[in-house]
């Protein structure tokens, strides 16, 4: 199979991420509003020559400030790669990525540092952001209160449940004080009940803080439950298949008829796309 990779020289454009400063992709304020995310013709190829794999092909995406965008797709569709590019952890092979302000990242497993307590994990983000020592204590406490973990501040990660660990990670994301938050299947490892509760938690925090969220998941229902808009991605090569605004009123429930119906529709669409690609 031969793939035509649309190549665009990536040099021009003030929106190109600076790979030396992850999380601080410097956009020009003139073009991007705070909290806005923009991908233009982004292609990512891993490897070279015969073993080269196109993970993302010519992806265009705009995320409005304060939007909750859910990205769904089968594994291998490049959705995690897309987040890495937006976070500035990796550079696109061609095309430009820009964000209005810094980005914060929430990983699939909470990735708390096991030698630090819950509070210290949050405080580390503050410290690395340059918050002076005197302010860190109070700020850490209020962040943990916001995810309702105030009474567990001095627990170590292994003494917390999976859901609690993700709530600490959520507090740490807030500590980064970035307008754009990237979440890479953050609830994948949780049981259904905890997951349901985390949906409420993430939705509440998102609304309170006015964040832009890019939430990657392989669960279509979860995407419909959370997103203002759902973007469906297809694989080999990874690209955006369709983008669908979700107009169901909030708060939504994962098991409501509206969510189930829309999810079924989107799943059908994904399946159709897969079949068309001979997948």
């Amino acid at each position, binding site marked *: 199979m031969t793939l035509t990779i649309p190549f665009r020289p990536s040099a021009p454009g003030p929106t190109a991420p600076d790979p030396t400063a992850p*999380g601080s992709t410097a956009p020009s304020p003139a073009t991007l509003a705070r909290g806005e995310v923009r991908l233009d013709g982004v292609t990512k190829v891993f490897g070279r020559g015969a073993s080269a794999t196109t993970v993302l092909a010519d992806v265009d995406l705009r995320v409005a400030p304060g939007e909750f965008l859910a990205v769904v797709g089968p594994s291998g569709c490049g959705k995690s790669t897309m987040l890495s590019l937006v976070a500035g952890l990796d550079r696109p092979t061609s095309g430009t990525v820009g964000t209005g302000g810094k980005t914060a990242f929430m990983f699939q497993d909470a990735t708390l540092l096991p030698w630090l307590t819950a509070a210290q994990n949050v405080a580390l983000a503050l410290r690395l952001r340059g918050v002076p020592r005197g302010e860190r204590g109070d700020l850490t406490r209020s962040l943990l209160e916001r995810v309702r973990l105030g009474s567990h501040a001095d627990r*170590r990660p292994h003494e917390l449940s999976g859901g*609690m660990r993700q709530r600490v990670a959520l507090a740490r994301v807030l500590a980064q004080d970035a307008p754009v938050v990237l979440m890479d299947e953050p609830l994948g490892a949780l049981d259904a009940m905890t997951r349901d509760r985390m949906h409420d938690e993430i939705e509440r925090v998102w609304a309170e803080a006015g964040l832009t969220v890019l939430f990657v998941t392989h669960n279509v229902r979860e995407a419909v439950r959370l997103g203002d808009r759902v973007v469906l991605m297809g694989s080999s090569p990874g690209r955006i298949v369709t983008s669908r605004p979700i107009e169901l009123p909030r708060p939504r429930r994962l098991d409501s008829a509206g969510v189930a119906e829309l999810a079924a529709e989107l799943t059908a669409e994904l399946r159709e796309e897969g079949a068309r690609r001979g997948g």
Partner: protein
Amino acid sequence: MGDDATATGGTADLAVVDPVAVDPAGTARRSVGTPLRSVWRATWPKLLAITLFITAWQLVVLTGWRPPYALPGPPTVARELWDLVLVDPKFWPALVTTLRRAAVGFLFAATVGTVLGIAVARSRVLRAGVGSLITGLQTMPSITWFPLAILLFGISETAITFVVVLGAAPSIANGILSGIDHVPPAFTRLGAVLGAGGWRLYRYVVLPAALPSYVAGLNQGWAFAWRSLMAGELLVIVASRPSVGSRLSFSQEFGNAPQLIAYMLVILVVGMLADTAFTASARRMRSRRGLASD
């Protein structure tokens, strides 16, 4: 189990608390018993082993396999040990000299090993150049360094320190190196996401993550330092400065078997105490990180 109930009761707001959370908290607390009982649980097998060893030793002496001046029995050695510790004016200065040498040599080795380990971890050239050399040095019996050390530094403290450092530093360097090499990539990624680059990544993420392996390296380094030091003190006897090694050597020359065995017991006990300290700190660190195998 009463402590289970208190662990659960502590988690206040039931509406928010995940049901799974109750268990990890419970297991974390259950392992803590009364301190006295846990000391006893750790001690009695040791006491039993020592009793068995002394009994076997006494039995061998009773068979008359070797004459008593070559192999004295436990009571004779015990009396000698008692005299040594409480009466002999040379014992404490000798022990202090030896422990000072061990401390100086070990600290030197820790400094050299740590700097070397971090440097090799960070530089590809250094890794290719001296990475395997470090492991090579580690397998080299340190006693083989003494002839060269004596040529270079004469019969002196420096010769002893030199060999102790050469014996211990490679283990310490390897400990921190493998710790750094095995830092989970997720942690480095997190560091990048939080904006920690360069030395800040090392300070807040990489080095703390490498700490358990580093402590294991220090522990092994200590063992090598102690062995090298004992070999050195038998070979390099600095005039008018008694040490545990030189006293051991004199005991053999003067045919004082009880004293010889008493000194060997002292060497054993010092080594065990140091190892216990390292093991305890390693275990505390592992359990704080939720890695305790118990």
